[in-house]
């Protein structure tokens, strides 16, 4: 059995994404425990800077570069990963738990008759066995999942591993992969109107709920998010009420997030919502009701009206963070 790890490093506009370095660090730790090497397959078009993965412990980089790989496409990424896997015979194929990783990881697992674990928050080797920790029930519980198959495909949740130095000189090679027939064709991309920070990748998130009282009051959430350089989210109640789009929903039927700092404003803390954000490192709650369940998971609590407290925080943040 091989002891090697194959890291699937995503790119955007030819540059490695942040998740690639998080994955490299997780991959390095597993490879060290197994006594194997880390190979990264970097998929994109006009790829530059792929050797930077050596900083986080990648031994070898296979670059799959071409117009067909410029933008994520499931069949193309699967073909690239399978070609790399055929070269490396990995014990573990590690994706990021992004749309790409969640869609293509399982497909690759099926093709390799591998085990598949999605959205892992931890990876360890115990008694020679790969064991992943992963949230279930939207984060209300965590499972330890042992891999019994010879090969595992795991997707790693964003923001749970901090990239760490394990410098070496990564050997960079080109891997030629024929673009597969396109059963799925991109017709159009609708870009967001403003540059938004993706919730699942954000370090800081400000979320609002019913306590904001009306959709037009959302400006105080957006303003605090702006002052903190944060992404903004919403509770299910306000999404169901049509105040905010579903892509902003945090919770069991929305996004599961694990930022460094989560500010919950006017959110009571339904089980549904807690499931999606309780993995945050530090939680600040702002709520008028001192008995709101959100205060049971919060590290810091401000009892007060979000409409008053958020502008106060935004003003102070703008002057404090400048220093």
């Amino acid at each position, binding site marked *: 059995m091989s002891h090697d790890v194959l890291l699937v490093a995503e790119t955007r506009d030819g540059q490695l994404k942040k998740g690639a370095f998080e994955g490299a660090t997780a991959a390095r730790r597993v490879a060290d425990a197994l006594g194997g090497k880390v190979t990264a397959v970097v998929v994109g078009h006009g790829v530059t800077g792929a050797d930077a993965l050596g900083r986080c412990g990648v031994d070898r980089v296979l670059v799959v570069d071409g117009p067909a790989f410029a933008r994520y496409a*499931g069949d193309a990424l699967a073909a690239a990963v399978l070609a790399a896997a055929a070269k490396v015979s990995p014990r573990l194929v590690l994706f990021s738990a992004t749309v790409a990783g969640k869609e293509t990881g399982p497909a690759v697992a099926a093709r390799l008759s591998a085990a598949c*674990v999605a959205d892992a928050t931890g990876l360890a080797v115990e008694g020679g066995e790969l064991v992943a920790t992963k949230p279930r029930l939207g984060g209300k519980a965590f499972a330890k*999942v042992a891999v019994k198959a010879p090969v595992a495909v795991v997707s790693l949740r964003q923001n749970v591993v901090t990239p760490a130095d394990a410098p070496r000189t990564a050997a960079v090679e080109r891997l030629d992969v024929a673009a597969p027939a396109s059963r799925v064709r991109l017709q159009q991309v609708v870009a967001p109107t403003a540059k938004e920070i993706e919730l699942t990748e954000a370090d800081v998130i400000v979320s609002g709920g019913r306590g904001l009282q009306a959709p037009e009051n959302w400006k105080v959430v957006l303003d605090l998010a702006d002052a903190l350089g944060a992404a903004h989210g919403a509770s299910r109640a306000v999404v169901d009420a049509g105040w905010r789009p579903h892509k902003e929903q945090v919770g069991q039927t929305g996004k599961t997030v694990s930022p460094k700092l989560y500010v919950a404003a006017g959110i009571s803390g339904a089980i549904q919502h807690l499931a999606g954000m309780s993995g945050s490192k530090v939680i600040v709650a702002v709520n008028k009701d001192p008995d709101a369940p959100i205060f049971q998971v919060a590290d810091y609590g401000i009892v007060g009206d979000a409409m008053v407290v958020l502008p106060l925080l935004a003003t102070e943040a703008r002057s404090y963070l400048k220093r």
Partner: protein
Amino acid sequence: MDVVVLVKRVPDTETKVRVAADGKSVDPSGVQWIMAPYDEIAVEKALQLRDAAGGGAVTVVSAGPAETSKELRTALAMGADKALLLVAPQGAGDAAATAKALADGLKGVPFDLVLCGKQATDDDDAAVGPMVAAHLGVPCVAFVTSIEVAGRTATVKREIDGEVEVLEVDLPAVLTAQKGLAEPRLPGLKGIMAAKKKPLEERPLAAAPSPTETRALSLPPGRAACVKVPATAEGARQLLKALREERGVL
């Protein structure tokens, strides 16, 4: 147009989770079971697509315990035409084993499209849809918020990296439902009565080995008591200072 919808019986999302005595599964006492919310969205969309095409059948398929017939009857009451239940003990198969069982179970079932929820809200793997597609040898687009069918292609939308992609997919295909794709209808009394007479086939599922094994299930670690901060400018300054200097998160 023939649509297959894959559904799963899961604990209600309002459930307060407790760990069972075996230390690796959810304590089922007091748990309300429901059709996974995203699967319900998939059922609704399948009904809409069938009706828009003016013909065909919606078949709902599940692998799970015998009790899943309740969730399948719900889908039939919503308007699905028939159901197939591959009966296996609760939690018997992981995503890979389940996907293989479902793909095998679909042999002989005609379909233009397979829909399922983007993920079941218990295991949260989001893996069954893409794996079934791989086993069936058909394309897959996950997390779709819109589906329009014209001839042998479907045009779908999905959010990725903060953008919305419009994709054209060859049929047959597997598509997984994200919230926003459809609003599930509540079954009416007429639908509930009609569902009792609709075909629901049960087949025992031979136990196939799962490539993973859940060793332990635990609740998230508790947090330290909440530090109360006054709702004043001075309180805001203290909080920001603590977040930056003590916690290092700003």
